């Protein structure tokens, strides 16, 4: 987090004097962006619950991958080419398949565990973020604008965690067991992080431009079923998308 903030501050400090040769952009703006959020994360959730007078210990692998996003933002100039603004990003709903690995106690013998693995389908992940951003905008040509931006980000994450999983015994001698349906519990948590990025816009008519945006944002959140260890999730990631900009 501290590294990201330092990076953003440095980027803005360098960008401002460097762009002095170009005329500043003055118009307040609104943007709408659609793109793909790229990330790859394998997070492990562990837990225990009681079964047959002993404990089931399980580990669920939550694999998060690429997702689409929509971003709506806006800002206004406060000094020369410096704008302040807000952007709201929502990642399109993701349903991920988890993989569970469990030690299941024996129904007849104490201290005898069966190792079993299986899928956990239908884990939903929702992520939205509000980016508070400072942006330095400049126009190398009258039609072409570049913005370098950064600032703090507040994430809101909602994710399905596994609370329990049912088991189905194959039968005597009980050396094999199948995993049944998992009981899911949706947990929601906020995370505080930061973002930095660049956008480039080409003005196609007087108040409308199109272009692209690349932004990296990041925060770490901890989600947990009460009584279980936390699932640490890194949220955000590298977003790249096509942007429509309306200036006034």
């Amino acid at each position: 987090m501290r590294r990201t903030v330092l990076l953003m501050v440095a980027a803005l400090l360098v960008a401002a004097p460097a762009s002095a040769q170009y005329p500043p952009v003055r118009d307040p703006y609104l943007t709408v962006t659609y793109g793909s959020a790229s990330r790859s994360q394998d997070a492990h959730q562990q837990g225990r619950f009681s079964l047959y007078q002993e404990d089931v210990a399980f580990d669920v692998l939550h694999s998060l991958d690429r997702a689409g996003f929509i971003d709506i933002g806006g800002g206004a100039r406060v000094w020369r080419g410096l704008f302040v603004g807000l952007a709201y990003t929502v990642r399109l709903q993701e349903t991920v398949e988890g993989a569970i690995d469990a030690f299941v106690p024996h129904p007849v013998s104490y201290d005898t565990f069966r190792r079993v693995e299986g899928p956990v389908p239908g884990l939903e992940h929702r992520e939205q973020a509000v980016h508070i951003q400072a942006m330095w905008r400049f126009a190398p040509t009258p039609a072409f604008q570049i913005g370098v931006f950064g600032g703090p980000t507040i994430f809101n994450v909602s994710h399905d965690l596994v609370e329990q999983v049912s088991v189905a015994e194959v039968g005597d001698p009980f050396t094999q067991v199948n995993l049944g349906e998992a009981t899911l519990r949706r947990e929601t948590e906020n995370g505080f992080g930061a973002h930095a990025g660049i956008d480039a816009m080409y003005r196609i008519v007087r108040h409308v431009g199109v272009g692209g945006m690349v932004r990296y944002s990041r925060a770490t959140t901890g989600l947990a079923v009460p009584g279980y260890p936390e699932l640490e999730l890194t949220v955000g990631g590298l977003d790249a998308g096509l942007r429509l900009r309306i200036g006034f």
Partner: protein
Amino acid sequence: MNRHLWLAAACASASLTLACSSPAGPGPLQKPDGGRGPADSLLKVGPPVPVSPRDGQVASSVMPRLEANNSRGLFTPGLDLLLVFEVFDEGDALVYRSAPVAQDPSNRTSHVVAVALAAGRPHSWQAIPIRDGLQGPPSARALFRTP
């Protein structure tokens, strides 16, 4: 313009570097500690229940027939179990131990003691469930007298 491109590249590189770091996971899955049942039982079964002789009854023979209600699985009805019958003298010394006997499907299992016990003396007996060499909780001791 070139300076801005370099700046953009630097920002993207730094972002990617940060993106590659992930929080530490919880470590590999550990097998839970195993439990034990009552009386150090290794089986999740209920104890057998002595039926006869009991409560100081006089047995019909010095080689009495011992009868107990079956042991049952706590989580597995219809579990195949064996019973071992043990007889103790009045000093609580083990004087007889049977070979494992398959539980009778009628829910009551009996066994005839294969040695002659000391006549006219108090004794006690118990039944112990067995499965795959593991021992379950023994029944309560039942008291009787030999004729």
